Structure formats: C-alpha cells, structure tokens
C-alpha cells in the first residue's frame, strides 16, 4: 500500500496518460539503436521522473525496478569526506549532486569516472548483438540546474569521453541554468505540465479505481489549485479523502502549510506598513527559510499573493522591483536581506500609492 501517486504511476511508456506522442518518440529512440544523452526538463510534477523510469524499463527490462540505496563516500582534495546517497539498480544509478552543495564537482568527477570505467557485466554477458549495443550504464543526475558552474564544466568532457560506457540523463526544471555546452551535448526533452483537463481526467480515473465518488467541482478545484502539478493534485485528492469522505462539492482543498503561511504574510504586508510590521514580517520570513523553503520560491509566491491585492497602476513597478531584488538575492548570500528589502520596498511603494490616491480624492 502506498500513496495513490505511486500506486497509479504508469510503469511503461505505453501506459502514460498524456504526451502520448512524446512517449512513442521515446520508444522509438530506445529501440532505434544508440541512445543519446538526454536532458529532461519541465515543471515539477509534470512526470519527468515517470517518463525516465518508463524509458529505462523499455531499455533494460524490469530489472531497473529493483532499486537499492547506497551511501557513497568521496574525498575531496582537501581531504574532506563527503557523503552522498545514490539510488541504483544493476543498470542505472541516480544521484542528486547538488545535495552536497559546493562540493558537487568532486562527486560528478569521481562518480562518473567510477561508473564509466567499469563495463556493465550484466549486459555484456548477453551474446545477442542487439543487446550488446546497450552495454552502457545510465547515470541520472537530478536537479542539474542547482549544480555549480564548476560541476557543469566537469561534466562536459566526461560526457564525450565515456560515451562508450555510460549515458547521462539530466533532469532539471529549467534549462536556463544549464550551461549551453551541456545543452548542446544532450537531446532536450521537454515535459510540459499536464493541462487542467488532463489532471481532472487522471483524478477521475483514480477515483474510479478506488471506487470513490468524486464530484466534478472538487476535481476542478483540485486541478486549479495544483497549478499543473500532477503529483500535487493526486496527493491533494488523497489528503481530501482522508480529511472528509464522502466528498462534498464545496470542500476545501488542502494546501501545504507553507503556502498558507506565505499568503498570510502577504496579507499582513497589505494590512499595515510600519517598521513594526516589517519586523514581524521578517520573523515570518525567517520561519519560512528555517523550514527550508527555497528563498526563490518564497519570492515567487509572495509576489503572486501580493499582486492579487495590489492596484494595477503599481503592479508593473512592483514586479520590476521584485525582479531586481530577486536577481540581487542570487548574487548575494543572505536571502533574508533581500527578501526583507523587497518587502520594505513594496511597503514604501504601497504607502506612496495610498497617499496619492487619498490626495486624488481630496
């Protein structure tokens, strides 16, 4: 028993629910001979991982589903030990190098070398000529957009040098942070988020399988608030079911606490513009950061929520300011300064606007 998300996850390329054309391309790619390096990108919850696993299954058979977790230890040049968790089957290994932060370069170099310099025994043992073509291991690197520059440069050469014995599948949300040299070495596969109707369809399918009575309004609502994130939608469905069953059409969709917290923070900002309030907001921002919510996400969410309640005349200015502060945040190292800077700026702009509006009425 597991979550609905895992229970109803399609395991084969044929069974994918949407982007079927892409699935057939992938199938052709696998069967057509040599597999290139892949760069799979798309928003979170669009089904990147599902597609990759299905492709691998197509490639190597069900052996890829026998997974094990290993802790690998690497030593940096300065004799610092770094530990990283890898997830592997006999045919592939998956690793998230950005877990180790700034040391990711070492992981990439050592890990890839280790893998690439050993032949895949399980496959070479097979005599079949067609099978022998698959005598490579697959390395899945997730969250490539969080890799440091050094690590990405370390990837370039390895990708060409060890083409014989290993293939890379890079996974990321956006290619903008992947250096062009890598982008050009990979076949880019974009996995767009499912449309709202596709999500509703899947929700209905699951409901039917689970013999739940799902009102269409609720399904729509869930699809709306999931913002194209299928995983989130399915989890929401399950959470709603635990919360209240039988469903009612006007049931509240359960949102993660951090989203609610950001929304409340935005409301606080709108409510009052004083240094005291700014101080309170700072505490809230700290709370979010300490809960490991990425600062960029805080920025995005906060801006969204603020824009919902600001007048059109200053929207442009607010967005420009937000962009400026977010950019600076990436250049700096203390997100809290920049987050608060943005909030202070917003408060200032909002104050000015209100004063102007009051003057107009007078």
């Amino acid at each position: 028993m597991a979550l609905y998300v895992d229970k109803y996850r399609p395991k084969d390329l044929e069974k994918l629910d949407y982007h079927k054309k892409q699935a057939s391309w992938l199938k052709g790619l696998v069967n057509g001979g040599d597999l290139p390096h892949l760069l799979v990108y798309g928003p979170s919850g669009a089904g990147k991982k599902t597609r990759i696993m299905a492709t691998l299954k197509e490639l190597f058979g069900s052996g890829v589903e026998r997974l094990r977790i290993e802790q690998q230890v690497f030593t940096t040049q300065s004799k610092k030990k770094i530990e990283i968790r890898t997830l592997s089957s006999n045919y592939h290994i998956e690793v998230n190098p950005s877990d180790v932060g700034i040391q990711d370069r070492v992981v990439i170099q050592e890990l890839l070398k280790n893998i690439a310099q050993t032949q895949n025994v399980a496959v070479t043992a097979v005599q079949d000529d067609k099978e022998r073509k698959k005598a490579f291991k697959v390395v899945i690197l997730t969250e490539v957009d969080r890799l440091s520059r050094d690590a990405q440069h370390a990837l370039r050469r390895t990708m060409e040098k060890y083409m014989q014995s290993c293939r890379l599948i890079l996974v990321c949300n956006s290619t903008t942070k992947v250096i062009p040299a890598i982008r050009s070495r990979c076949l880019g596969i974009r996995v767009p988020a499912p449309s709202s109707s596709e999500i509703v369809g899947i929700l209905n399918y699951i409901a039917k399988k689970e013999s739940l009575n799902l009102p269409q309004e609720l399904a729509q609502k869930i699809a709306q608030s999931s913002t194209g994130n299928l995983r989130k939608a399915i989890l929401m469905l399950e959470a709603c079911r635990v919360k209240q069953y039988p469903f009612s059409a006007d049931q509240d969709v359960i949102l993660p606490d951090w989203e609610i917290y950001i929304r409340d923070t935005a409301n606080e900002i709108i409510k009052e513009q004083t240094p005291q309030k700014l101080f309170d907001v700072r505490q809230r921002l700290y709370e979010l950061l300490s809960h490991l919510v990425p600062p960029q996400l805080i920025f995005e969410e906060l801006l969204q929520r603020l824009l919902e309640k600001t007048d059109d005349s200053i929207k442009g200015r607010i967005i420009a300011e937000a962009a400026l502060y977010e950019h600076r945040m990436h250049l700096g190292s203390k997100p809290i300064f920049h987050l608060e800077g943005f909030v202070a700026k917003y408060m200032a702009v909002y104050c000015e606007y209100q004063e102007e509006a009051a003057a107009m009425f007078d």
Partner: protein
Amino acid sequence: MEDMEEEPSDTLTREDEEEEEAPAGRSVKRLASPTPGCSSDSPDAKRVRSESPSGDLEIDLDTSTHEEVPPVPPVTRWANVFPVRTRDGRLSLVPVRSTNSIEASTESVPSNGEKLSLLKKPFWDVFLEAEAELERLRQVPVSHLDTSAENAALPEGYADVEETRPGGHRDSREQRPNDELWTEKYKPKSFRDLLSDAALNRMVLQWLKLWDACVFNKEVKKPPPVPQETNERKRFFQRWLPELNMELDKSRRPVQPVVLVAGPPGLGKTTLAHVLARHSGYNVVELNASDDRSPEAFRSALESATQMKSVLDKECRPNCLVIDEIDGAPSQSIAVLLNMLKPEPAAEGKSKKRKPKVLTRPVICICNDPWGPALRQLRQNAILIQVPSIQTQRLSARLQNILRRERMKYDSAALQALAEKTGNDIRSCLSTLQFLHSRKGAVSMTDVTATNVGNKDTQQTLGNVLHGIFSKPRETQTSGRRARSSDIPGLVQSFGDYERVNQALFDTYISRQGLDSEMTSKVPLSSEWLCFADQVQSVIMSTQNYSLMAYGSFTAARFHTMHASYRPTKLVMNNSHVENYMKSQKMKHHLSSLLSSTTPSMAAQYSGSNILLEVLPFVFGIIQPQLKSSNVQLLNDEDRTKFRAATGVMSAFGLMFQQRHIEGRYSFELEPNIEELVRFPGIEQSFTPLTYAAKLMFSRTLELQKVRSSEDSVTSTVRAKKVTKSLAQVSKPAIQPERVRKDFFGRVIKKKSLSDESPSQQTEREQEEAKSESYSVYYRFKEGFSNAVRKNLKIKQIL
C-alpha cells in the same frame, strides 16, 4: 579619580600625601628603617641634608619653588599646608615644605633611580658616592643652577627625573635635546609619579605586600578596618576594584596568588607593575610577547624567575615576575602558570623529591582584554584589576609639565584635544608631542587636528561599534561635527568583521524609534544598503577579491547618517542569523533522516526539495485518518482500509511513532519528525491530530509489520538455503580418484590403516568426504542481516 577619595574640590598633586597614608608609606618605612635619611616623615631627613655641603643650595631651591611657581595651582592655593584625611577619617594638616625637602634630599642621592636600593648598600658607599656627586656638581656650578632653577619651577615629582640619572647626563641634554624618547624619559620612576588611579595603585601595592609573609618571612600587617566610608567612595570601589582577599593560604601566600591588570594600551599598566614591584623591594623580571612563550620556555622562565634559591643574597632582591601581554600567550603556557598556582598538596615531607613546584613569588599579569577564552582559568585564580582610562584633565596637566620642561610652547586646549584624540593614551600623546617638538618646537590646535599620529589601532567590541553607529556624538569643543561620518568607517574597520556588523545592523535598525514616518524613505534605503553590502560580501568570498573589502565599512557610515540619534539606544544583540541557521540545521537533519529511511522505490520518485514542499505536507495529513475506534480488531471495513493505507504510507516513508516522556506525560512523536518540518506556527491545522490511543495503535501495528517483514526475509533466505542444500545432495558425487595426501614437506602421508574401522563407519566417512567435496562454491547476495540466521560453518563445508 582621587577626587572621590579626598575632597571633591581638590585636584592634582594630591597623591604626594597619599604616601603618608597607607601601605605605600608603610613599605617605605619598612625598608628604610636601617638607615636614617629615607623615612618619609622623620626629621632625620633634614639632618642628613644639613650635613651635606650642598645643603644650602637645596634649601634655596625649595624656597624658590614656593616663590616662583604660579602655574601649579594647588601649591599656591594651599600655601604651605596640605589637609590630609587619614584612614579613620580625621583631617590633619601636613606642612608641604617638609615633604618637598625630603624628596629633594632623597632624590638627590644618586642611586640609579632606585632610591630603595640605598638600603642595601653600606652607609659608607652611599656617602662616598654622594661626595663624588657633589664634587662633580661643584665643577659646573653655573649651568647647574640654571637648570635646577628651571626644574624647580616644576611641581614635585619631576624635579628628580634628571637628577637621579648618574654622571653628567643633564649637561649633555643641553646639546643633544632629542637623544631619548620622551616616553622613556618621563616614565614614572616612583609610586608617587604614577598617573593611574591612586586607589588602584594602592590596591596592587597592598597585594604585593601580602607576599611579604612568603617572600621576606615577615608578618603582614593588616590595615586597620575602615570604619566609615562615604557612599561615593564605596561606589567607586565597587565599580573599579574587586575585593582584596587578605587571607593567606597554607604556604603563606595570598589566596589569590596572581594579579591580572587589564586595560587598553597606553594607560601605564606595565609601568605600574614595574614601579610597584620595585617599590616593594623586588627585582622585576619581565616576560613579554617578544620572548619565546612556548610552554617549555615559559616553564623554565617561570621557574628560574620565581624559584631562585639564592633569594636573599647580599645583592639580590627576590624576583617579581611581570608577564606582559599575557592575552597573546598560548593557552598551554598559561596552563603551566596555572599549575604552579595550585596550593601545595596536603601530604608534605613524604615525597620530597617530586615536590610539585609551587609559585613562591608574586606574579603580575598584564593584558588588554581580560575576557579572552585563554585567560578564563587564570581569571578565576587572580584578582582582576581593570585600569580605567586616565582623566583627560589629569593627562593634559602632566603633558603641560613635560612640555614646560622641554621648553616647548603649548596651548592647553590643544593638549586636551590631543589627549582626547588618542583616547587618553599617554604613550601616543608623548610620541606625538615629541614628533611635533622635533619639527617646530611648538604645539597648537591646528597641529593636533592635522596630525594623524595620535590615531590608535585598537580592537573594538561589537557593542562599541553599534553604539558608535547609532548614537550621535555629543558636541565637544575639539572634534567638530564634520569628523563624524568619517570616523565611523574607521570604527567599523577596527572591528574588522563586516559581515557581523551588517547582521547586527540588520537586527537593530528596524526596532529603532521614530522610523514610523520614514517608511517610504529611510527604511527601504536601509535595506537596500544591506542588500548591497551582502552582494559585495559574497563577491569577495566567492572570488577571493579582497580589494573590495575597502567598501565594507560604508554601509555602517550610511546607517550612521540615517539612524544616529541622541536618544540612548537599546541594542538588540540577538543574532537572528545564527538562530535561523540552527533551526534550519535541525530541519535539514529531520529531512535527511527521512530521506534515508524511505524505501528505495519511494526514493526513486522524489528528490529532496520535492518531498519537502509537495509531498510531505499532504503525507502528514494522509497518515492521520479519523478512526472511530482505537483497536485494530474493532475497526469497521471502511476504517480498516483507511488504517491500512495510512500504515502503508508510513512504512513506505519509514515513519514511526515514537513514545516520548515529556514533563511526566507520555506522548507520541513522529520519527523522523515531519510535523516540525511541515507545520508553521499560527496556522490552523487542517487535520485533527490523532489521539494518544490511535497513535499507540499505529505504533504497535508498525512494529508488528516490521517484525513480520524481517521474519519474511529470514524465512525466505532459510528456504533458499534448503533448496541449495538439497540440490547439492541430489547431484551425485562423482567418484574421484583418491587424492594423494602430502604433508608440509611434500612426503606422501600414508593413510591410517582403516582396517580397524568397521565397514559401515568407513562408508559413512567416505560419504561424508564425498559430500563435503561435492559442495560447489556459491555466492548469495544478502540483503540486510539478522542474528537470527547466523549459523556456524566449518571451512570444510564451504570448500
């Protein structure tokens, strides 16, 4: 400072009388008693002088002092009499003339500037020296009279500086005016000349006297108890000075065997230590940062200094160790010192050979910052004396005297400004003045403001820096307003750590008052500056481009211009950054322990940030279904499916309910604690939390599942083993040619005759052997392990 001890209206030069007062006076008497002429208040002094041929001259000088000396106010004001308050509070009047003349007489005897060493010399030696000196003086009568008249114009205490120098030095001064640093030249030579606070001086001296019992084998006289202390006085003592413990320990040492003198540079701490130690009859051994201070070197220096055997030789005085700049010493060296401080162990005489070395001499430690971690142990064993900074007036008066002696024109306001500028640092004042003197022989206000020499480079604390940034300086006559923002960067630079300053600014500025009307101007501007500072900082760190450090201090300057006020600031010293960091580390720990406990099939689908933001908030709800009963057996079908689903999810993520005993109540907590990860304060929980009973049921079921799954894996491996065994048995052992067994040297071993064995046994053996040889090597991947399946195997069975 001394105002508080005596009458508030008094100023300056009063310290002379204090010599009569308490321990200082005593010490002089003690050492002076063998020879006449040095005791401070006896008429003997006069007698000695009148015996000497130059007596008339000296008396002339004295009278001239009183007639010609308008610039020193107290002397003229009080004419020939000083009121003195004795220990029990009585006022008594002491004629000035006697003290003056005594000084003149005692100081004029040449004795290498150490008048106390006089006592150690036989009388005739002193007499002969005095004769020689007088002879010399007679040869240069004119110039001598000139300069001595000049000297006489100075207040007491300085007149002796030149005279005490041996051999015609004064004459050469006329020709080569700059042959000596002023800081050396005008260094206080006796207790009376010390510029530092008199009460403090006395306290250190009193402590040194406590050592008399141990060092000189003399009884320590207890000072009479002070019956009535004025409130003011009491407060003063509480503020600056710790209580001196007058008790002695077993080895007759003071209970606190070390004194730790602390204060900013240039206050005369080292001078204080030297003068006092000499005053009490010690030979000063100094150990400072220029010496090797490795633990071994330190130990040997300590031992040689404090445990010298020939302590009271004819010429030798006992040593007093002055450890200067101890805050820079390595902590191991300080540990060596601490070891020696420990009182002698109780078992005496038993092991004389390995008697631990015990400190038997006074040790004075000097440091700038007494709160350093290296000194923590030492602080507990020592009397900590923090030297307050010298009053500006007092310092400038001393400077005036010196300048008068050097015949340099001065302007008293300029001197005061200089004293302020250097932060009342005598040393830097003097060197600045000497520099100016060598240039043009006069000092004026413009010189002082123009010169940069007086600026000090000291380490500031964060509190000081913040205070400087957020408070407007009071207008002083010397420093104009314009100087303000220019010295804030300097202040911050002297602290050094810009990142901490910026963090502290961030924490502090928002809670300042009067910002309400500044929402559109100062507040966003402030945070923008902080953003800028952060960018600069991270560029420096990432590119190692330290030339950008130069811009680090301007944020603080800008904050100063924006937020400084006269209002006293309450500084918030909570470091929100560190707090946040600690918290997020905790969260990271929760997350990583969760990731490591999830099953591989789960881990394949979720990465760290996904699981945190998108999965866990829902999972947290999903594992809390509302059940009507808290007994597994009594659940209805619907609830049972819910329950199964929840436990399934929990085991997939490796979640457990763990019992905690908090404040006498049992409760269940999720382990890894995802509740802490996903919940935010102040948000209504959308799921009703599980009851205690329900959690209990969950935890039991999960435990059961765990046991079962491990049993499953055990049984499956056992089964697999059986299968391989049976396979091995099934495959018939091929009949092999009997192997020829050889021993170690290659000789063939003859088999024991098997004839005595029964044929049935024989066949059994053969079968056994055959079986053991027929086992083929096999390898099985073992997932996890458990003691339950451990089985002893013989190597024979494997091969």
